[in-house]
């Protein structure tokens, strides 16, 4: 169980990263029911491991570690258990006031295409693409996966090419700097 401080920390943290929960869940599932189940499991695992978070890595890095590991494990063993569980979270989509509806529709369509492409990628590439789309640096990606930054460069380059091919678009050169 978490004390009140940790609980408010978790709530703050979730406000910043809640979208990532849903994104990872969508990237690793094919139906909305599965997505909801997986998102709940990620939340559960994040809550469970919160007391062990020592701040050695950034909250975003730590979250992705938990989320990706949970997502990959969940496929094989957690489905039967989750069918008996009450819903833990509610997901709402709040339209942005700043963007016009036409632009929003276009972005939504692009995101849908991205998810389709991610489902078609090899799973390592899928993980890297998720981190890349979330604008993580090479060092953060390396920290999530536990590999060297130069290795991230090699793999990400290939993943981006694969994504571009699936999206029917050529990747632009040098569009991601290590920052």
């Amino acid at each position: 169980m978490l004390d009140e401080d940790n609980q408010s920390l978790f709530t703050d943290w979730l406000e910043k990263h809640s979208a990532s929960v849903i994104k990872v869940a969508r990237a690793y599932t094919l139906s909305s029911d599965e997505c909801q189940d997986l998102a709940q499991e990620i939340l559960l695992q994040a809550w469970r491991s919160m007391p062990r978070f020592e701040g050695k890595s950034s909250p975003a890095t730590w979250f992705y570690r938990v989320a990706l590991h949970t997502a990959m494990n969940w496929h094989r063993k957690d489905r039967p258990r989750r069918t008996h569980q009450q819903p833990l979270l509610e997901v709402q989509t709040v339209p942005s006031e700043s963007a016009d509806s036409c632009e929003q529709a276009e972005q939504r369509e692009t995101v849908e295409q991205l998810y389709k492409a991610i489902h078609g990628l090899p799973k390592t590439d899928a993980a890297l693409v998720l981190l890349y789309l979330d604008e993580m640096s090479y060092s953060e990606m390396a920290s999530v996966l536990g590999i060297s930054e130069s290795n991230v460069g090699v793999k990400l380059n290939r993943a981006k090419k694969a994504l571009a091919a699936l999206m029917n678009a050529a990747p632009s050169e040098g569009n991601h700097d290590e920052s």
Partner: protein
Amino acid sequence: MSLDKYQQAWKAEASQVKVTFDANLLSKEVWKSRENFRSLIFWRDVREVGVAIWMIPGWFVLGNIIPVPWTWWLTVPVFLWIAGFILVDRKLHPQSPSGPGEPLLFYAIESLTQVEHQIWLLRNIFWWYLLPPSLSLMAFFVHVAWNGSSNGWGFALVGGGSGLFLLVIYGFIYWINQWAVRNQLEPRRQQLMKLVASLEGESDAADSDDIMELVSSLAATDQNSGLSPNWATWSQNWNRIIPSWREVALIIVPTLAGAYCGFRYSMPEAGPVFFQSVVAAVIPFEIMFFGLWHLSYRRHKGQPLTATGTVRPNAPAIVILVMILLMSALAFAAIFSFVNAAGSRSGSGLNDISAHADEEAADAKDDDESASDLPINERLRARLVGRYQLTPDFIFDVQDHDGHLMVGITNQSTQEVYPDSATKWSYRSIEATLEFKLGRSGPASQLTLHQNGIKQVARRIKK
């Protein structure tokens, strides 16, 4: 569209998502999942260590109920050794996966280490798990065969049969573990090694980075940690071996036929009829069962067990599972009946009283020699019937049952004796003779037991 645009669209979509959660419910779920995990690990350890530990009191109970030779107790330290070995191994190489929050490469290496250790355990299962109980149980079987057999053939039959029984059982356990190493653990190890190399190295090999496979392996290690498979794959395997009632019939019919033959054509020198019936049933049962197992293995070669969740054994498989338990219980009961019979044949306690036997045996020489020429009939048997006391707790009870002279001994089973002459009657199952002292008329006044070159006199007592 450039990749930058994808990032922008992705970010814009993310900013529109809002997630709310119920903190109390989440706390309860965390507690529940932690308890479930603890329970999983606890019951796995109970299965593996507990079986060995719980066998020890059972062994003591049986050893005190049934007269067993000292070699019975050799198996107790063996149980302690197995339980201790597993406990120490679990302490040095914990099989439970680490909690979330580590880099993915960490889990890959952790899983690889666990799989490699599991392979080592199973490859060496002969030395730490099979050899010690084989030696102690074989010593027990040979000891029992030696005590209970009246000749070399009986000893070879009982000792060899028991040895064969152990060989089949332990051979099967060894084979199934090596099968698991070859077909489950070794491929997983290769896969994990490739993935670790891929994650650690700078290579661009496209065929070696399926991280889903990596974590599938992690999940499999989590569920399959230890020596026993998970419930779903276990059930699926049983359903493969016994898919229908046809397989049940293929096992039960030869088993019943064997049991009938063992009962109908039992041999007096091979132990109690019950023992022979069970042995004759167990042999075809094992042949048919392991034959079907082998066929199932060949039929499903290359099709790994992938069941999860709600898979349960079907009705025919449950029948055979119950039958295996029943046959195991009967096999144990048969062994004990054999040991019991062997104990009664050896005439326990005779050596204790042999010191004063010679003097009394001398009196038996005063028997009326002519009595040995008397005709063997109902009248003669009536003169022999009665109770003869060797010591207060060792009394021969001689009775005439439908023309058969039956001799019961305190706390031992009743056996028939056969006439060599009117006064000398011998057992057939053991080398021992009873010599009655008959006067010119009236009942016999005493009997002398001749066994192992020793004579012991028991005097008639009142009923």
